[in-house]
């Protein structure tokens, strides 16, 4: 094909013909903008969640630098620094750690940091400065200051005792008094707290060290930033390689320890979006593309069929189909150039507003709104792709037009295949209006679908939020006002395993000192070693989900045995009367638990999300005898000879082939009678999957296990004092006992409402925007429908249709559009509703499907108004021209 430079001419044609279609342009720009709004807000929300997730990871990882070269001397630091691969670098010298109370539960590091490093460790002072060289200044965070009991005020003096050579046998406690040069707020997501010293002070302290080669004191680390975070591990290794070192094989000579910030790695990134989330995002993306397609396609389709004579003319005088396509594509791109930026800006604002709503439902401590340029690039690209897909078919239609036919082309000619109408009774206004809708079935269908989509989405949103069932949500929560326990117990992967996690009597008495408590009780958790004895079958049954058959056989072989029963782990609660009353008794009676002389025990059966008992989750039946072994001491032994290993230390470095095991050495076996089978509400149970569970009375538990670690303290208050208690606990667990936390009925209810609110807000926003798109589509359809028929309407008037009759016919047309949409939505709601309800019910256990057409009924008046008002308004602008003027309009 000969390449002719006709681009400019084609472009001029495109531009000029565009100028002629002002209304089309406005609607197309709006449509493109709305599509871009949808994409941008979706991407903003997704990117913000991801960004917040990453920020949370950085805080847990300790900083946001890409990689680290560890265990360096200052000379090495200076050598590595010159490496051209490194974009930025920050050196830090570790000095020591305070580990004695009050720091026993916190991770605090004393060190010198180069000033530029501080922000990367989240140590930028909010007030004051970093410590100045040659002073006795130090900077730290509010958490360390709180533990020391010092007010965060620049210039305050504080004394800190900490260990140097902390990780060696020769650790040395040093005590220094510093002047606070600056402080920053404690961020609970950050794992390590820092006390920063001037370099001279740090070096002076390190000089006191023992010089133990394994000591961390005086050791430098060099944190690195590279050009990007795509291949951090390779980059760090490349830096090492430049100095003849490597960080991969610890057994080789030239090994040097490195760190790669896992907050950046792709694994973490993909974890933050599980398949479900990705699927949801994909569905929403497709929905947006479809919505955008519906309107942009309609706008271009209509405009092409209106201008078909023009395209026919162009073709007659020698414009090629390719050039015609280019003209249309060019117009689309030009309109995108205006529409997309508008959409990006609006979408970003909407996304910003919605992000916190979504984030409040995810357990992130810090919410960051991302301003990632990729949001805009991505949204713009998606919007552009939608535009291009949408105008592809209209462009093809224009390109394929035959010059001769184009002159005769009239809207509705496509439907002329049937060529006949069978109506016998003649024409009535409603029938004419109906026939007019049928002229361009594609346009009508697309318009109706886009309106339907909005209504359906609204119905789904409403059904969804209506179906959120508070009772179902609360049914696996204990019927109690407050639960207090260690913070780790309440974490998502709840933990309770040591006395450190126990609620101290001090806390309980602090709570009891408050007024308004009506009922209360302790739930003791297991912190000592206990075993139960079960049949081989049950052992296999309870482990088979987690283990291969070989491992199961080995477990059976290796288990300690009493008769034909095998020892296995067990999980036991001790409960005071009040928590006992929160249990759901399936069989038997809890009374015997309260008398330690009865040696009674209750067997716990779990429930599924729908609160029905899973009978396979315990083996004990009413009246059974359960043996619990309290192990005080265990010993190691060789499996082949049974010989006791006196010094278990040798096992650390043992590399022979002899197998060894552990067994109870000092222990007590005690037998209990099962007096009841119970369900325990999730909110007061061990919040992790463990072994078979049993419940004893509190006295029995304390007496037999010899431990009294309170896992949770549960209590009810009078209604009047509930708010005050909530406030007290919130304040108390924040400042006085930060390692402890609580849950309350209010929190559950707020959680639930928040979740529902999120769906309402998101669904509402989505319905609203898609509704806008639908209405825009409708306006466009009515507008073009009337404008292209200006002449025909004038004819109708000239042969005797009154203005009133004409308006009536147009209103009928408008109403048909909107009522058809509602009918379609209704049919969808009727057919798909129960199906969707069932699906939702199986995903969200607290969802109860309730059939509703309320959104459709509510939209009815709006749609009636729209259906009547839009045609009237458009007609009014047409009616400004006299019949003669309109009749005179030439066909071209």
């Amino acid at each position, binding site marked *: 094909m000969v390449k002719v430079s006709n681009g400019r001419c084609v472009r001029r044609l495109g531009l000029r013909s565009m100028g002629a279609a002002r209304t089309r342009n406005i609607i197309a720009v709006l449509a493109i903008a709305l599509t871009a709004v949808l994409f941008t807000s979706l991407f903003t929300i997704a990117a913000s969640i991801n960004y917040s997730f990453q920020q949370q990871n950085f805080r847990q990882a300790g900083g946001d630098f890409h990689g680290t070269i560890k265990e360096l001397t200052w000379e090495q630091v200076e050598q590595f620094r010159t490496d051209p691969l490194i974009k930025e670098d920050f050196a830090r010298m570790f000095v020591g750690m305070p580990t004695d109370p009050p720091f026993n539960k916190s991770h605090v590091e004393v060190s010198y940091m180069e000033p530029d490093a501080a922000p990367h460790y989240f140590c930028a002072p909010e007030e004051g400065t970093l410590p100045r060289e040659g002073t006795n200044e130090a900077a730290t965070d509010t958490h360390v200051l709180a533990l020391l009991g010092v007010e965060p005020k620049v210039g305050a003096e504080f004394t800190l005792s900490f260990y140097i050579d902390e990780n060696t046998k020769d650790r040395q406690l040093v005590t220094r008094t510093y002047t606070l040069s600056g402080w920053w707020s404690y961020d609970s997501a950050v794992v390590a707290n820092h006390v920063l010293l001037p370099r001279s002070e740090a070096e002076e302290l390190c000089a006191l060290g023992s010089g133990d080669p394994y000591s961390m004191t005086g050791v430098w680390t060099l944190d690195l930033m590279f050009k990007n975070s795509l291949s951090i591990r390779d980059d760090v290794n490349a830096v090492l390689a430049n100095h003849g070192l490597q960080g991969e094989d610890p057994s080789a000579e030239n090994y040097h320890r490195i760190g790669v910030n896992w907050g950046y790695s792709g694994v973490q990134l993909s974890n933050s979006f599980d398949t479900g989330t990705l699927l949801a995002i994909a569905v929403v993306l497709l929905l947006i593309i479809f919505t955008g397609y519906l309107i942009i396609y309609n706008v271009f389709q209509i405009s092409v069929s209106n201008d078909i004579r023009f395209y026919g003319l162009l073709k007659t005088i020698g414009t090629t189909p390719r050039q015609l396509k280019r003209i249309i594509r060019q117009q689309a791109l030009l309109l995108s150039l205006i529409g997309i930026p508008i959409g990006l800006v609006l979408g970003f604002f909407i996304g910003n507003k919605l992000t916190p709503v979504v984030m409040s439902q995810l357990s992130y401590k810090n919410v960051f709104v991302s301003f990632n340029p990729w949001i805009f690039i991505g949204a713009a690209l998606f919007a552009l792709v939608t535009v291009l897909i949408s105008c592809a078919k209209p462009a093809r239609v224009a390109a394929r037009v035959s010059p001769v036919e184009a002159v005769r082309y*009239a809207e509705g000619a496509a439907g002329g295949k049937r060529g006949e109408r069978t109506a016998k009774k*003649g024409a009535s206004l409603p029938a*004419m209006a109906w026939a007019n809708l049928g002229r361009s079935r594609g346009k009508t269908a697309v318009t109706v679908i886009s309106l339907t989509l909005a209504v359906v989405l609204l119905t789904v949103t409403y059904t969804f939020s209506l179906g959120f069932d508070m009772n179902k949500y609360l049914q696996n929560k204990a019927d109690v006002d407050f639960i207090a326990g260690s913070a780790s117990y309440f974490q998502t992967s709840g933990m309770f395993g040591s006395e450190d996690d126990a609620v101290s009597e001090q806390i309980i008495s602090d709570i009891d000192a408050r007024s308004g408590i009506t009922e209360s009780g302790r739930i003791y958790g297991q912190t000592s070693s206990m075993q139960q004895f079960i049949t081989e079958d049950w052992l296999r049954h309870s482990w088979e989900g987690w283990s291969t058959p070989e491992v199961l056989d080995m477990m059976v072989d290796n288990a300690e045995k009493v008769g034909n029963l095998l020892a296995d782990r067990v999980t036991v609660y001790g409960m005071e009367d009040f928590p006992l009353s929160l249990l759901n008794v399936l069989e038997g009676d809890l009374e015997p638990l309260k008398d330690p002389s009865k040696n009674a025990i209750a067997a716990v059966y779990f429930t599924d999300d729908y609160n029905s008992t899973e009978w396979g989750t315990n083996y004990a039946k009413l009246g059974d005898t359960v043996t619990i072994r309290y192990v005080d001491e265990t010993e190691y032994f060789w499996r082949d000879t049974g010989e006791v290993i006196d010094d278990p230390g040798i096992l650390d470095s043992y590399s022979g082939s002899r197998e060894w095991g552990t067994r109870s050495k000092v222990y007590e076996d005690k037998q209990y009678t099962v007096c009841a089978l119970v369900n325990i509400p999730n909110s007061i149970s061990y919040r992790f999957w463990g072994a078979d569970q049993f419940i004893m009375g509190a006295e029995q538990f304390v007496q037999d296990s010899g431990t009294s670690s309170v896992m949770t303290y549960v209590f009810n208050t009078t209604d009047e004092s509930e708010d005050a208690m909530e406030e007290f606990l919130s304040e108390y667990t924040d400042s006085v006992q930060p390692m402890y936390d609580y849950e309350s009925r209010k929190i559950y209810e707020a959680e639930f409402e928040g979740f529902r609110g999120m769906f309402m807000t998101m669904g509402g926003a989505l319905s609203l925007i898609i509704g806008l798109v639908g209405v825009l589509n409708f306006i466009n359809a009515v507008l073009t429908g009337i404008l292209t028929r200006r002449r025909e309407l004038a004819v109708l008037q000239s042969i*005797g*249709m009154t203005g009133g*009759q004409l308006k009536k016919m147009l209103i009928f047309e408008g109403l048909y559009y909107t009522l058809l949409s509602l009918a379609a939505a209704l049919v969808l709601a009727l057919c798909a509703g129960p199906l969707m309800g069932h699906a939702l019910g199986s995903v969200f256990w607290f969802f109860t499907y309730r059939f509703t057409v309320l959104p459709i009924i509510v939209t009815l008046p709006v749609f009636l108004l729209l259906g009547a008002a839009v045609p009237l308004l458009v007609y009014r602008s047409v009616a400004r021209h*006299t019949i003669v003027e309109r*009749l005179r309009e030439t066909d071209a």
Partner: protein
Amino acid sequence: MTVLETKDLRKTYGAGETEVHALAGVNMSVQKGEFVAVVGTSGSGKSTLLHMLGGLDRPTSGSVSVDGRELGSMADEELTIFRRRKIGFVFQNYNLVPVLSVYENILLPIQLDGREPDGEYIGQIIDTLGLEGKLKNLPNNLSGGQQQRVAIARALAAKPAIILADEPTGNLDSRTSQDVMGLLKVTSARFGQTIVMITHNEEIAQMANRIIRIEDGLIVERR
């Protein structure tokens, strides 16, 4: 009996330097049952005249009366209703409603008026115009001549006092034109229908009973 009468009918477009006198004082009258052709060149004012006669446009001054009623005295709504009862139109490009069948198009003016069509009369019209086999067709499936016949049938259906035809053969070849003119003449005769037709074609005009020639907004010759 006079069905149509104008008195010093004037229509002026624009003002000042761009003022155009489309009609500069037209006086004419048409008797019942007459078939009158108005002839003039393009821009002579003949279309403006037709629009005035049909009440589609209002004169700057002067008056038009149809069937004894003065059009200028009627409000828009009233005028429309009067028009659909008393005046039938036949246009150069047929102007049929594309979504209605031939039969529905013919009945449309009567039904818009909320009247029951006179079945026998409609049957006669259809018969006269040879449309029996086409009643269910949509206009787009008909030839130009056939479409114009439907338009004539539509104009006749309401038994108007007068039919105004605007270049009814303008889009047709000469044979079909002869055909359509023949039909107009026949209907005029058979139904006693008054017809005013405008055309620029002398040959076509010859088929009318009377020719009125118009130039620069004035009647220059009557015959």
